[in-house]
């Protein structure tokens, strides 16, 4: 693909997609939970800018709405909520991940290759201008999944979960310029409620164990 032949806004969109992927890798290696949440907020901001650009490009009114929703929920409210939670709970660092950082990054690279392979047939069928980003969206989802399974602290897992949702959102945007508005509202509502439920839940866990380390939550085994 010849980059100079692309219109400026598309080049910008591709750059944003690449930045999203880079952020996923940054989150994969980051152990400081405050930074992890900031990275998530930046990821949300990039997503919001990408949606705005796409809205301007296609003139689709619902994308403006969706960008506004992203800004309110993923850039402002959720990071604020998570910051408040870690201040109240006093969890700032995750422990050493289950797999060391170098190993995790290598797995991440393999995931990117795999994702582009997986997205190939979909990209080939898509008619959107952003179809080349579908592979990146899949990679963001899978790397977020990897983040979740290599972390021990509940908070890092939640950030991974939200990053996964960001990836899915980006995927829907790249492939079809977003889902119908009613569905996007529903998904946003679910994410919001999920985080509120989690807030309550974290306090219950801490009250019981004095810690948010998930090692305490490994006693239920098959033979009980």
């Amino acid at each position, binding site marked *: 693909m010849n980059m100079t032949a692309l219109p400026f806004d598309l080049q910008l969109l591709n750059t944003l997609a690449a930045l999203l992927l880079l952020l996923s890798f940054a989150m994969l290696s980051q152990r400081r939970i405050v930074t992890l949440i900031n990275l998530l907020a930046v990821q949300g901001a990039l997503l919001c800018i990408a949606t705005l650009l796409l809205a301007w490009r296609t003139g689709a009114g619902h994308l403006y709405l969706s960008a506004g929703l992203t800004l309110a929920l993923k850039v402002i409210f959720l990071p604020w909520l998570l910051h408040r939670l870690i201040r109240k709970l006093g969890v700032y660092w995750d422990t050493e991940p289950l797999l060391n950082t170098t190993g995790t990054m290598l797995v991440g690279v393999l995931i990117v290759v795999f994702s582009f392979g997986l997205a190939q047939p979909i990209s080939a*069928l898509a008619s959107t201008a952003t179809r080349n980003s579908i592979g990146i969206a899949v990679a963001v989802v899978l790397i977020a*999944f990897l983040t979740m399974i290599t972390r021990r602290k509940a908070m890092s897992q939640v950030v991974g*979960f939200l990053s996964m949702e960001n990836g899915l959102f980006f995927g829907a945007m790249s*492939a079809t310029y977003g889902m119908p508005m009613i569905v996007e509202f529903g998904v946003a509502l679910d994410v919001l409620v999920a985080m509120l439920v989690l807030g309550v*839940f974290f306090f219950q866990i801490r009250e019981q164990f004095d810690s948010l380390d998930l090692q*305490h939550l490994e006693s*239920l085994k098959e033979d*009980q």
Partner: protein
Amino acid sequence: MSSTLTFVVLLGTPLLGALVLGLTGGKRWAPNLNVAFSLLTFLAACALTSNIITHGNVVLMQEQFFIDAFNVFLVTLTAFVGLTTALFSRPYMRIEVEHGRVNSAQLRLYHSMYQLFMATMLIALTTNNLGLMWVAMEAATLSTVLLVTLYRTPASLEAGWKYFILCGVGIAQALFGTILLYFAAEKILGAEGVGALLWTHLNVVKAQLEPAVLSLAFVFLLVGYGTKVGLAPLHNWLPDAHAEGPTPISAVLSGLLLNVAMYAVVRCKVLVEGSLQSSLPGRMLMGFGLLSVVLAAFFLWRQRDAKRLFAYSSIEHMGIITFAFGMGGPVANFAALLHMTVHSLTKSAIFFAVGHATQKAGSQLMDDIRGLITLSPTVGWGLMMGSLAILGMPPFGVFASEFLILTTAMKQQPWATPILLLALGVAFAAIFSRVQPMVFGETTAKRLPHPPALVPVFTHLALVLMLGLFIPPYLADWYRAAARLIGGH
């Protein structure tokens, strides 16, 4: 009354109930209010059903909702079990309060979330929009997470966390599948039209949908909703969530939520099968189903907790249903639908009986529950008969559906029959050998401060017995119509 009005009452009642009980759910009379809301929901479901019988399928509210042969009986079943569980929960939760396990704030949360959970399940069942179905399924998880952790014990917190995160990740896969489905549909139906996620529209054009995208979408949808069905190897959250929450919640999770998730899988399967024109989706369902049946049957042997035992039995039965839908065709689909009904009724009845049994023994461990029959013959007999019914003893309904599934398997997939029979045999031995000493023998149980709720247990068992002996003609017609709709090979 028009269908729209009835439908608004059906969805509005539990939503209003969640709100009202969120404010007053801790009061002494709140359990009665919970029953009243559930009763109104059930009456609305009955009225809607009779409307459907006379007027046929309907599409409501700018096509966002629809009722057809497949979901109408599940709506009625959900509302019915919702009502009987509310009846059971009345004495059960009062006893829990007396035992000091829950306070009035927790009771308020419990009642409010119970109604919200019913509302999300009814939305998931009746919505025509596959995106909304996803939203409702996720909302169903969220409304029950805090119920699983209601007792705040370490084990219940662990179960709640597992439930939240595993179902969350699972359902994220389903969202990706839904996006892919929308991607394929948008090519045919157009992005501007609202029809691209509406099942009724998709069903018309399913043969034109791009097969490569739909097969990929189905993998994600099956893994996503399959996690909620509790299909092995994605079942890890299920036994914990069912064992650690209050028993009425175990009953509705097992009896209703699994059905709703199964419903979502089957709706997607219909579309994908129409697009692919091959038996690939069916074979995937059969594979997952069989694996679940076998794994669950062997895990049953290792259980010591009564509620975990029956949770594994739910995985086994969901496996049987998945296998039957995988085979497809009129007979297997009919049997699967019947099995969904009888499993839902029987399993919730068993949980009712087990709930009172654990309250009497003061423990969920099966070794601590002994000789129920001497102190309270009704709870003992309820548990015994429920267990026999779920194990597929004639003349109960489970026997009829399992018999149909097995004979169809012999005809269509002979290789699977011995595996199924072996698993059913292992499960029989495991459950029967555990339940028998719980019911008979020396007793250690104590009296309860409130009389146990026995009407729900025996109503369910009587219905299952009736379905084993005689299926009312209109019910059979429904099953047949739904089985035709689901199709398959």
